[in-house]
Each structure stands twice: as C-alpha cells, then as structure tokens.
C-alpha cells in the first residue's frame, strides 16, 4: 500500500486459503450492494483480507445501442444509466452533442439546465444519504430523505412529466418552457431544505455510533484517489479541491458563487460531510439561479436532422457521483459512430478494494455506500 501507483491486484479464485479464512460472496442479491453488485470477500474471521468486485449483471450494451440510434433517439437511453441522477446524465450528453455540432444552447436554456441539474444533485445525494444510513443501521433518515427527494421529483414531474428517467433536456436546449410557478416551487424547496438538512445532521453528524462507524473507515489518500481516477465527492473528501463546475465550467456555472467543500482524511465520515455540504452549496446555486433566469429562446436552431461533421469530442460534467464524460465520434451521418460513456461509478468502484482491505465485514457495506455507486451506470 506504500506506493499508491503500484497495482495490487486481487485474484481471489487462484489464491490459497489460510487456515482461518473463508470466502464470502456478497451479492448480486444482497440487501446492501445497491443493486446487483457482487463482491467476493476473503475473510479472516470478520476482517477482509482480499476483495474482488464482480460486475456486469446489469449490462445492457448502452454504447452499442447508441451506434444504432440517431443522436436524438439515444438521448433517453442515457437517463437509464445513472437512473437516480437522470437529469445530470442528460445534461452531459446534450452538451457533448452540442459541442460536436459546434453549437451551444441559449443562455436561458443553460440556466434552467443548471437549476434542474443542481436539484438533481440534491436528490441524488439525498438518496445516497438515506441508503447509506440504512446500510449502517439507522432506519429513520431514509424516510426523511425520501420526503425531500419527493419534492424535487415533483418539480421534475411538473416540468417535464417524468420523475425518474426524465429526459428533461434536448440537444440544443430545452423542449419545454418552465411552467408557471417554477421559480416559486424551487424557492420554496430551497427555503425548507436548509432546515431539513440541519435535521439530518442532528440525527447523524454528532451521533457517537455514526461517528464510530464512519470515522477512519475506508480511508483513501489523495494520491491513491488520483491514481485510481476517482472523481467527485470521493476525491474531494480526500483533500483534492477539484470540481468540474469550477475547473471547466459548463452550462451556466461560471455565473454563480459557490464553494467546493473538501476534507482532509478521505474516510467515510469525510465523504459524508462533503456530500452534506455539497447539498447546501447546490441549494445556494439554485437560489442564485432562480433569482434571474434570463429571457430568450430555449432552443438553439439546429435543425431536425442532426448530422454533426466528422470528428470527435470528449465532454464531461460534474455529475453527483463524479466526472461523467461522453466521448462521441461522428462519421458525418445521423447516427453516432461511437459513443463512449465515462461512468463515474465504474471508475470510483475500482477504489473499493483499496478502501476495503483490512476492514471488517460491517465496514464493507459502509464503504460500498460511501462510494455512492449506481449499478445501472457501472454496468451500462
């Protein structure tokens, strides 16, 4: 573990078991593997000696499907990858295709996109908080989190008619104008939310059991995190102040003031605090954006049939889970020649082994929870 760049790779099936060691197969059907993740653990008593993630149970060949759909037709598919943050996925894809076309969405569209994406970030983090707390054994926060998430989903539903896989954005801008009372809804949510998040913190942040279960668990150093390509809150909790919204602003993020929360240790508790603070910051962005949504068109004039000129583009956004990138190659036809998705969950999950070694079985579920994976995105 000394050299962060060394590749310690596990190959459980070929290793010989010690006297007191057992192999525990967690998943793909297990209450806390967040879907169909399967983790093979080699245990000495309850201590993890080695681990291996086995994924692919939810593989749907999204990248292959993309090659057989037109650019617009593929847009709803990206919602099905990280299905708890569909709006963010859609934003990344639409902006990537816009970049490929050499065009850009109008400013009004970009501001509305920013608001909805930040709301989606809050919703995604709320879901993470609830399930993470549930994994650690706190039964109650999940219901509070769902209560707030419901408010966000209602806004989505009012805006575009869908709650989960929203397909909220179109290539070139937006299909729908904001509904009447959109600003008030978002404002009301933001006003309530500040008390609610304090409420969660009183349940967990100072709780001795919670601190005991998360502090010092699954430590990931900054060097390890960078070497493993980890992004998002996990990276920031390790002390790297890096956020694509600041580093390479997209949508309308360059217009708003917000902080990038970071922590030092990179343990589960730090990641918890970072995400809690991120929710607060997202709320601030929403409030700033809602103050002044510029007037103007919501759709760029790009035509009905999209034929991007040959070439390729890589565009990435700061999704709730980390850097979500789209690498799209065009051959000049109406269908993408290749769409590659850089899924944050997939790459963050690679750090699992590093975090889990030497910890206990109970920590394993805390670590799976703290990486915040969505298997739809890991497996695609």
């Amino acid at each position, binding site marked *: 573990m000394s050299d962060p760049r060394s590749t310690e790779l596990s190959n459980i099936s070929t290793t010989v078991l010690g006297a007191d060691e057992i192999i525990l197969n967690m998943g793909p059907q297990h209450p806390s593997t967040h879907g169909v993740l399967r983790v093979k653990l080699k245990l000495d008593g309850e201590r993890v000696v080695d681990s291996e993630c086995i994924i692919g149970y939810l593989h749907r060949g999204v990248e292959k499907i993309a090659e057989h759909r037109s650019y617009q037709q593929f847009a709803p598919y990206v919602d099905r990858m990280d299905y708890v943050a569909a709006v963010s996925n859609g934003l990344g894809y639409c902006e990537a295709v816009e970049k490929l076309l050499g065009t850009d969405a109008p400013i009004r569209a970009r501001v509305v996109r920013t608001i909805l994406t930040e709301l989606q970030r809050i919703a995604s983090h709320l879901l993470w908080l609830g399930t993470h707390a549930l994994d650690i*054994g*706190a039964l109650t926060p999940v219901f509070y989190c769902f209560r707030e998430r419901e408010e966000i989903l209602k806004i989505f539903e009012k805006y575009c008619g869908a709650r989960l896989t929203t397909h909220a954005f179109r290539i070139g801008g937006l299909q729908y104008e904001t509904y009447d009372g959109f600003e008030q809804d978002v404002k009301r949510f933001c006003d309530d939310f500040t008390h609610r998040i304090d409420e969660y913190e009183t349940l967990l942040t100072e*709780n001795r*059991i919670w601190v005991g279960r998360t502090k010092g668990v699954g430590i990931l150093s900054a060097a390890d995190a960078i070497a493993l390509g980890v992004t998002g809150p996990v990276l920031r909790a390790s002390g790297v102040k890096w956020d694509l919204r600041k580093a390479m602003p997209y949508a309308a993020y360059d217009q708003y003031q917000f902080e990038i929360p970071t922590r030092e240790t990179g343990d589960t508790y730090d990641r918890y605090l970072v995400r809690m603070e991120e929710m607060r910051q997202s709320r601030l962005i929403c409030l700033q954006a809602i103050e002044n949504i510029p007037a103007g068109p919501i759709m760029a004039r790009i035509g009905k049939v999209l034929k991007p000129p040959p070439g390729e583009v890589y565009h990435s956004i700061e999704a709730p889970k980390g850097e979500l990138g789209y690498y799209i190659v065009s051959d000049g036809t109406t269908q993408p020649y290749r769409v590659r998705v850089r899924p944050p969950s997939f790459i963050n999950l690679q750090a699992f082994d590093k975090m889990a070694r030497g910890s206990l079985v109970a*920590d394993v579920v805390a670590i799976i929870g703290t990486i915040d994976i969505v298997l739809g995105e890991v497996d695609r």
Partner: protein
Amino acid sequence: MGHWLAPSVMRLVLPLLYAVVIVAVLPLLAGYIVLLERKVMADMQARLGPMRVGPHGLLQPIADALKLVLKEDIIPDKADRLLFWLAPLVSVSMALLAYAALPIGPAFLIADLNIGLLFILAVSSLGIYGIVLGGWASNSHYSLLGALRSAAQLVSYETAAGLGLISALLMAGSLSMKDIVMAQYDQGMWFIFYVPIGFFIYMVGSIAETNRAPFDLPEAESELVAGYMTEYSGFRWSLYFLAEYANMIIVAGIATTLFLGGWLRPFASYHDHMPGTSIELLDALPSLLLLGVALYCFFLAPKQPVKIQKLVMAVVGGLCLAIAGVLAGALFASPAVLQGVHGAFWFMAKVFAYLYFFLWFRFTFPRYRFDQLMRLGWRFLIPLALVNLIATASALLMTREWGPSLRLTTILATIVTLVIAMWLAKNDEVDSAVPVADGE
C-alpha cells in the same frame, strides 16, 4: 387466598391453565407487538405504517401470521437436517419455558420458585443454542457469521446484564420473583430509584441479549442479510421471530419485576380511600384510561372508509370498554381478585413501556460494529456494573451499620458510580479514536 376448589387440585390445575393461556396468547401478543413496532416506527418516520388490513392495520398481524404459516418450507440441500429442524424449536421452547417463573400478577404465576430469577436467566441463556445451531446447520456463511456473532455477543452481555440485576437483588435479598416485588412494596420504592445505574446497565444488556438494534448484529440486514435466519423460511422462520419477541417480553418482564415494581401500581404503598367507600383512588386509574381508549375508538369508527372497517373499529372499542368494565368491576370484588386483575394490567403496562424504549432505540441509532460492540461490553459496561455493584453493596452496608436512610446512601453510591462512568466513557472515547484497522 380462598379458593373454592381443593387447594391440592388448584396447585396443579391453575398453573397448567396459566401455561396454556400463555402459550396460546403469546403468538398473538407478539404479532401485535410487531404491529405496534411498525406503527411506532411509522410515527417516528413521518408516515402511516400498515393501514390496509383492518382499520389502521389492526388485522395486519393475523394476515402476516397466515402468510407465514402458508409459506413453503425450504430446507437447504446441504443443511444438517436434524439440527436445522431442532434449532428453531429450541429457541422458541426456551423462550416460552422462561414464562414459568415470570409473575404477571400476584396470583398469575405458574411456579413461584425460590430461585425464580436464576431459573429465567438459565433458561433464556439456553435460547442461544437455537441461534448458534440454526446458524451452523444452515451451512451458509452468512448464517455462520451471524451465529458466531450471536454467541460472542450473548456471552459478553449476559455478564453485564447479570451484574446489573444483582444490584437490585441486593436490595431485595431474595431470588424469588414474588419476594422481589413484595420487597419493593415493603420498602415503598421501586428499585429503579435505588439503583438507576443498575437499571441502565440491564437495559443495555437486555437489548444486546435479545439482538435488537443497535445491537442487532447477528441478524444485521445490511451486512449478513438476515444472519442466522438467512436460510429459514415460512413457519420455521416465524418460530425464530416468535422467540425473539417472546424474549423481548421476558427481559421486559424481568426489568419490570426487579426495577419497576412488578405488578404494583404507582405509589403502591400509599393508600387513600375514596370517601365513604373502600375503593382506592389510584385503583380507578386503569379503567379510566381504557375508557378513554374505548371512547376514542368509537369516535374513530364512523370515520373509517369501509363498512367492515367501521365494524372492526367498533368491536375494538367494545373490547376496550369490556376490559375497562372488568377492571372497574374488580374494584368491588375481593382484594385478591382486585390485585390479580389490576396487577396484570400494571404489569403489562410497564412491560409495554419498557418495550417502547426498545423500539425507540431501534429507530434512532445506527448499528454498532462488532468490535465496537465488544469494546462497549467489556471495557465500559462490565467495569461499570462491577463498580455499581460494589457501590450499592457499600450503601447497603452503610445503612445497616450506621443507620442513615437507604435513600441517602444509594444516591451517594449512584453519584460515585456516575463519576466513574464518565471517566470510563472518556477513556473509551480516546481508545476508539485509534484507527480500526489495527484494532483488536
């Protein structure tokens, strides 16, 4: 107690009758505790809980029980069939056996053993075999890990809980459950006020012994799926379930008997008669409470959406009214009947109050990790229990030798113990700040 049958026959028949009643009622009671649990949980989590089966889900336990009984019974191929079959039986029969010595009222007691408390502890400590053997016989890693955790946890926390109990025993000077309650009547004070720390230690220990959150590691859902019960289904699973809830009632019963005055009503030694009658004011309390519940049911009944639900609600109200009537009627009967009926009421009320705390903890706290659980048990609870024991014994000795009131000396002892508890907790905090990776 003047019975109208020959005492020798009564000595055999009455306990048998009680036993049958307990075995028959307990599953129903457990089912309704589950409903209560779900309702309390729902209330704390800003939702409604079961609402569909019967008005406010009142028939839910019956539906659940039917579902469980009708489910397919699966025995894994590689399981040890004999032990797999035996284990839930051990669990549930040991849990039920413990009721033999639990006094629900002065008369409602199957056997008044002079080692009653020890008997209950002994029998409930056998229940662990149900868990351990079931976990092993399932031939699954999750079950085995659950069983191992359970065994280690039970052995550790039984010690702490037992030491907590002893502080109350010192006050009572007897192991017979009946004598313990009577001692509290004689001293005019529930023992929880003499040895609050002993009660606290027993409470924590009893949560751990019954595998309830935050100490539910043997069946920790998010880690071990369902722990030792992972491979069980249908009726066998419900036996485990029944055993768990029966054990909860047992530990609540022990706590009630030792610390909360058993079947005694509040201010039991305080007698204030209603003017002109022999009825005590405080004795009217239970029936008034139930009358209120009955009226509330009648108030709710017309508001139910479906006709059958209106009916069920009304029946529940009527039931409460009937019980209130019985409780009120007992006021005019002989003192023995009064004590029996009201004793059962107060006993159950205290048991449920204790259980409410169990539920409350469950919905508030995250789960401990195994090493933290062990550290809490061995480094905090057991030392604290020993200190508490010594302090309590010293208080008793002081009272006996020099004669200050027991109340004064026990308060002194409690303060000393509290100071030491704070020191222990601080120590523990320092220790747990050490990274876990190189822990025990």
